[in-house]
């Protein structure tokens, strides 16, 4: 990288200030605050707090609800990431072959991206409505009595479906542009070297898409963990009960619905550490195997 030289030593500091202020106010300050309050037991009505050491943490591990949310989060994240990546890749590979009307096709696929997560959730609720939802009717036709918000697995199914549907367009666009950045002649050379189209895909196209795939892997995991909050909130409709929820949503429920600020802070600290560890592992392990041209 180029080293910039400033005549005035205050100018670079001045230029950095906005970024530092934003990170400070919106990340470090709340993070430190969360860390601190995770060691306290707050009065539900805001009349003070008691230092309880690591009790907030230890009690979490004895709560079956927390373990359940953690298990759900893991499977939800895996399912959403794997499904939305693979379906989007399939769409991109197919769209890449479309010559006529390619633009219209791509635009139509992109539209879903403009739908905000809560709106996606509401659309999902409409589709899965207990009494007149078209998808519920369809499932009933096949003998599946779909019960959103009542049956744990049905609710989880709907959440995964909506989250995947919402994420496919972004992945699709990235994969498509990744595919189109592979030189045409390299693919043609592969056509001469390998008769099998699937063989060419796994030997040549897929490795060359790996940088895009790695980037999307990280953003999709982040998406499944955090950005699905709106979807989960609308699907659960503020009635957590026995419904599945992710760790992030549980932090909100415990902290703001259950007024257990200490416990919810402890959860957010755990989540922060997990995400940090995961990011390091991803970059250390996965990136090493990827060839950047």
């Amino acid at each position, binding site marked *: 990288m180029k080293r910039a030289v400033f005549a005035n030593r205050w100018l670079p500091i001045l230029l950095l200030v906005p970024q530092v202020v934003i990170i400070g106010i919106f990340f470090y300050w709340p993070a430190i605050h969360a860390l601190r309050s995770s060691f306290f037991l707050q009065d539900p009505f805001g009349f003070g707090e008691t230092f309880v050491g690591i009790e907030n943490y230890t009690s979490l591990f004895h709560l079956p609800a927390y373990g359940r949310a953690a298990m759900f989060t893991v499977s939800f994240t895996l399912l959403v990431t794997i499904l939305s990546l693979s379906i989007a890749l399939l769409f991109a590979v197919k769209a890449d072959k479309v010559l006529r009307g390619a633009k219209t096709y791509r635009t139509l696929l992109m539209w879903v991206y403009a739908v905000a997560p809560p709106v996606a959730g509401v659309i999902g609720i409409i589709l899965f409505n207990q009494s007149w939802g078209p998808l519920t009717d369809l499932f009933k036709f096949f003998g599946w009595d779909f019960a959103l918000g009542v049956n744990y697995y049905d609710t989880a199914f709907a959440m995964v479906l909506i989250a995947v549907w919402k994420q496919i367009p972004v992945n699709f666009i990235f994969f498509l542009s990744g595919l189109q950045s592979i*030189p045409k*002649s*390299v693919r*043609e*050379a*592969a*056509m*001469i*070297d*390998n*008769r*099998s189209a699937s*063989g060419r895909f796994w*030997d*040549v196209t897929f*490795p*060359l898409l*790996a940088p895009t795939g790695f980037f999307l892997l990280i953003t999709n995991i982040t998406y499944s963990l955090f950005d699905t909050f709106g979807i989960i909130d609308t699907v659960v409709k503020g009635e957590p009960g026995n419904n599945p929820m992710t760790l992030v949503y549980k932090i909100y429920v415990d902290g703001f619905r259950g007024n257990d600020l200490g416990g919810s802070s402890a959860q957010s600290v755990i989540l922060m550490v997990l995400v940090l560890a995961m990011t390091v592992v991803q970059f250390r392990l996965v990136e090493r195997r990827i*060839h950047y*041209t």
Partner: protein
Amino acid sequence: MAQVTLSQISKVYPNGAKAVKPASFDIPDGEFVVLVGPSGCGKSSMLRMIAGLEDISTGDLHIGERRVNDLDPADRDIAMVFQNYALYPHMTVRKNIGYGLQNRKIAKAEINRKVAEASALLNLDDYLDRKPSQLSGGQRQRVAMGRAIVRDPELFLFDEPLSNLDAKLRNQMRIEIKALQRRLGVTAVYVTHDQVEAMTMADRIIVMNAGNIEQIGTPFEVYNRPATTFVASFMGAPPMNLMEGTITDGQVRIGDLVVAQNLDHPAGPVTVGIRPEDIIPDAAGQMKIEVSLVEELGAHRLLHGTLGGHPLSVYVSKDNEVRPGVLHVSLKQNAVSLFGKDTGARLS
């Protein structure tokens, strides 16, 4: 190694553009054929149809005894060298060369042996475990060649393989490719827009323009007896001088000047073509050229001037000291080519 037969091959793109108009020719076993022409002339479409990368709109293509129109590129037993080399960036040189064999169910030991053979032939031994991004342009070119020869195909296809190299390397690779093809005896079709490459490498040249084949012939024929004014102006640097003239009373004239005798053709306007090197300075010569510019080329001098108002260039050896001004010249024997004024086709 095989003969390649094209009969009435044409290419029409979905938008109606006729890239290649129906063309027929045979390439005998082991011949090195160069398709040459300006960009957009259809030479690449022709090559890509032979490779199977483009559908053939009409006509039949045979490689050896097989009709290959409907075969996949991988089944045509061809190997192609691309303009930008088209190496697989994530594979080592060894894997790049071996990839085509690996997909043809060839035993590992056999692949290793063939890769080693090809790399020895191309001086790539030290680079087998490198990735293409760590190689120079010339080395990448060699890897692309290796990928082609290791397969031992019936037909080599080259799509402007040297145009990304610098001039010096290009000359060297030109000789290497030609020598390699000679040694292996594999039929080759080579596409280029560079007429020097075409002249130096080809057994036979096919000159194309706007989807038409203008001429098929040996480099000597194409250069000395161009079939059309297009070929005359495209092949040769500097190109053939083309001037408007007339035939009257069996004499070919440019303006008032008689440049040749011709009794075979009816009187009327013609296009007169004279190669710049066929005009020689001659104090006793009848033709007077008004030289306006002298280009110093080292071994030669290129003179630009006019003859009776027509622009013209003359190529003289370095021994001729020429200054801008009037220069008396004469023509070598049989230096004049005649073309129909409207058709552009060669007369006689």
